């Protein structure tokens, strides 16, 4: 019996030592860094404090690193990811995130070591990691090693594009152009390819060729898909999982669901913490929707006070004034909206003003002029988006309503150019130049047309 007791005692002693050691390890393990939370809103402060206080397992460290990075605490994120990497040395995801964070704070050599580790550990986006390695070499003013990395990541069109850019800078223009052609095959119509083509032509001394590419580039708006863009979206997504942006998302969802009372409380809570444009927009929409016109007007005025006028807010201001029956003041706001910008809201302002004058017999001519301005803006948009038929229709209207507008004829010419009607385009550009002999863009287009016909 005594022997058995002795054995039991030994086992208990071993247990105490082992579990005591494990407890010590756990209780006295390093804790996450404490960022300066005085510089953020209280929602973010509360959530980050909670995440920090409940960080125990390696996965918690990994998440905390992501949360710190999303909230902009890069130094703390870097330290936290480093600890996560110690605890999970076999995790390619931790290595990748650590690499990305180190790159964000300019520690490019250390960042590359982590990206390399992520590749070796079998990260499913190994090519992305290699692309980031190439970017870090560029940051480190080391294009030679960047070239090696981009060649390894060449299945990513943007890596191939970066390669083309390095070669362009080295003066190897033919090889750069060959690569660019391959990029275009994978990512058709992307703006960067036209811009780089224009630069290549310029370096070759082919000014006309460069100008042609410039005109093409002007109406492109799609960029080559970027692994950095993907990481940026991930950061934004993480950002909306906690703190201020989570509350903002919830509040805006309530507005969208028309749960007006709850929405109002939530939106106010968020705006009390921080003036967020999107949430503030929701608040204005909410007040308009429930008919609180006076309150909406106050919010709009507050918005203009803080961020200044834009055609979008001036459009809303005009609409709210109109709702209140202040027609002249509404007109003033819409006109300012046209003056200050040329975006979609400015076009809507034009429509409002044209409709306003259209309703008054004495002001038919004014109405036509504003319709012309609006049509010009729509035509510009159509050209930017390469919707040339729409642009052509709008430019034709602009010319009809205001035959003295050089810009309208220029836009008509551009739309005709887009539709392949080169003769008609030449006539429109010529008419534009008759009205405004110094119209530089019309001169450029006409020159390019003449060059092409030669």
């Amino acid at each position, binding site marked *: 019996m005594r022997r058995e007791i002795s054995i039991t005692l030994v086992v208990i002693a071993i247990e105490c030592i082992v579990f005591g050691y494990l407890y010590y390890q756990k209780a006295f*393990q390093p804790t996450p860094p404490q960022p*300066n939370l005085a510089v953020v809103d209280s929602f973010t402060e509360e959530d980050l404090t909670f995440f920090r206080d409940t960080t125990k397992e390696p996965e918690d460290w990994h998440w905390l690193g992501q949360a710190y990075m999303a909230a902009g605490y*890069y*130094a703390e994120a870097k330290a936290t990811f480093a600890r996560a990497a110690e605890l999970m040395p076999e995790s390619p995801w931790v290595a990748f995130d650590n690499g990305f964070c180190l790159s964000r704070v*300019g520690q490019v050599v250390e960042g590359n070591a982590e990206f390399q580790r992520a590749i070796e550990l079998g990260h499913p986006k190994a090519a992305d990691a290699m692309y980031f390695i190439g970017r870090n070499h560029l940051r480190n003013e080391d294009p030679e090693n960047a070239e090696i990395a981009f060649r390894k990541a060449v299945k990513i069109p943007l890596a191939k594009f970066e390669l083309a850019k390095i070669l362009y800078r080295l003066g190897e223009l033919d090889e750069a152009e060959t690569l660019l052609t391959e990029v275009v095959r994978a990512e058709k119509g992307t703006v960067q390819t036209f811009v780089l083509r224009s630069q290549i032509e310029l370096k070759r001394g082919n000014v006309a060729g460069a100008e042609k590419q410039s005109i093409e580039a002007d109406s492109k708006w799609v960029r080559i898909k970027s692994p950095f863009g993907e990481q940026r979206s991930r950061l934004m997504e993480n950002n909306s999982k906690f703190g201020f942006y989570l509350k903002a998302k919830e509040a805006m969802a309530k507005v969208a669901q028309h749960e007006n009372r709850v929405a109002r409380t939530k939106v106010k809570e968020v705006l009390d913490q921080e003036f967020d444009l999107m949430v503030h927009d929701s608040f204005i929409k909410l007040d308009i929707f429930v008919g609180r016109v006076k309150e909406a007007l106050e919010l709009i005025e507050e918005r203009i006070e*803080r961020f200044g006028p834009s055609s979008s807010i001036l459009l809303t201001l005009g609409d709210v004034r109109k709702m209140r029956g202040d027609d002249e003041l509404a007109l003033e706001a819409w006109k300012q909206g046209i003056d200050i910008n*040329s975006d979609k809201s400015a076009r809507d302002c034009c429509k409002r003003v044209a409709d306003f004058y259209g309703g008054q017999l004495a002001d038919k001519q004014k109405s036509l002029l504003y319709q012309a301005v609006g049509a010009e803006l729509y035509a510009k948009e159509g050209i930017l988006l390469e919707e040339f038929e729409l642009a052509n229709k709008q430019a034709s209207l602009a010319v009809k309503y205001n035959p003295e507008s050089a810009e309208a004829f220029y836009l008509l010419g551009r739309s005709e150019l887009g539709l392949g009607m080169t003769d008609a385009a030449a006539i429109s550009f010529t008419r534009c130049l008759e009205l405004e002999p110094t119209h530089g863009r019309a001169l450029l287009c006409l020159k390019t047309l003449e060059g092409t016909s030669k």
Partner: protein
Amino acid sequence: MGSILNSGREKNRPLAAALVVSMLVIPAVFYIFNGKIQARGKPIDVERIQANFDPSEIEFNRESLVPNPEFGQLYANLKLLPSAEGDWMDVVAADCRTGQVTRLSHEADGSWSETVINQDRLLPGPGGVNPVDFDGDGDIDYLVSCIGGIQPTNDLVGRVCLLKNNDGVFETIDILDSVRRVTDAQHGDFDNDGDLDLVVAVFGGLLQGQILYLENDGNLNFTDHELMNISGAIHVPVGDFDNDGDLDFAALVSQEEEEVIAFENPGDGLVNAKRHWIFSSSNFDLGTAGMVATDLDQDGDQDFLIALGDNLELINNAAQPWHGVKWLENKGDWTFEAHQIASVGGIYGVAPADFDGDGDIDVAAVSMFNDWSQDQAASVVWLENDGNQNFKTWQVASDPIQLSCVACGDINNDGTADIVTGSFHFRRPYTKFGSIDAFLNPGRAK
């Protein structure tokens, strides 16, 4: 004997049972409470970028020209010019928030009065302003470049406007419109025909931008020539960079290009200007944010100072080790040598002046994106020149934060160079708001 043993066993049985239970309970207890063990170790060390510097030995005194802002102001550019009274200097500011260009004048009671120049209409995001007698009628007009708004857009929202002075009443004239975001417009008689022409940095939206030359026919009709289709042009300082008697200009191009391209005037204007790549970095993240021309080493030719600190790719910015100030030393024959003369996070504006009165040119710099989570992070610094272009960074202020522009001059007419800064505060943290602040140089060291 056996019974004795048995009786001993009987006696030890409870003890044995207790020990066996303990043996089983200890791991179970550990298993149950394992998840609840609170870590009490030391927080792990955090390595930070240097954000603050030795306090300036010159004790600059802060004076707010537009005091007590309740929220972030959006001043994109400011210039100093002599006041009508000839006492204190006036400050002209481009205010992106209100769409106004304002002139601030020092009053006899010590306050500052503010006059809006463009009273006839608002401007779309005025980002640059240059006081100049543009039409040669003897009064000051204002040349304004407009970015359209603070949010990035690919729309054709950029403009160049002239606020033409008609006997004190200003008329806003659009010189250029239907272009993407414009960040700078500078003037000069490039073709030597007696009127002022323009060079314009159309920063662009997505990736489409331009560098334009606007040739004046003498009647404020301008023919625009595209010198280059490139996005990201920020500033286009003008000067005679090759000392041949005509005006050239240089363009600082950011947006992942990160280069400076000089345009050499052949003598008859810029239509056939020769391009020189005088600085280029493969570091697409360099963060070029501003450039001014100055003869920093006073050797008779124009050099450039470049602010490095732009960092807007992500919702939260990070100061980078390569941020700070670069000096491009003009070595002649269109070769320039780059020197990093300060490393400070998020530098957006630079301006030269002799702050310590020792005859050499020092530099003031302001930060928009330093590491503001550090309470003492520098927002205004000056770089002391030892006479051989070795610079020591002195911290002037850590409040206000998020500054975009700086101008230097003897604003209070006391014989020493002062610093005037403009705040562009649209990101976290929403504290330490500034507006237009002067840091007056008392002309003495601590």
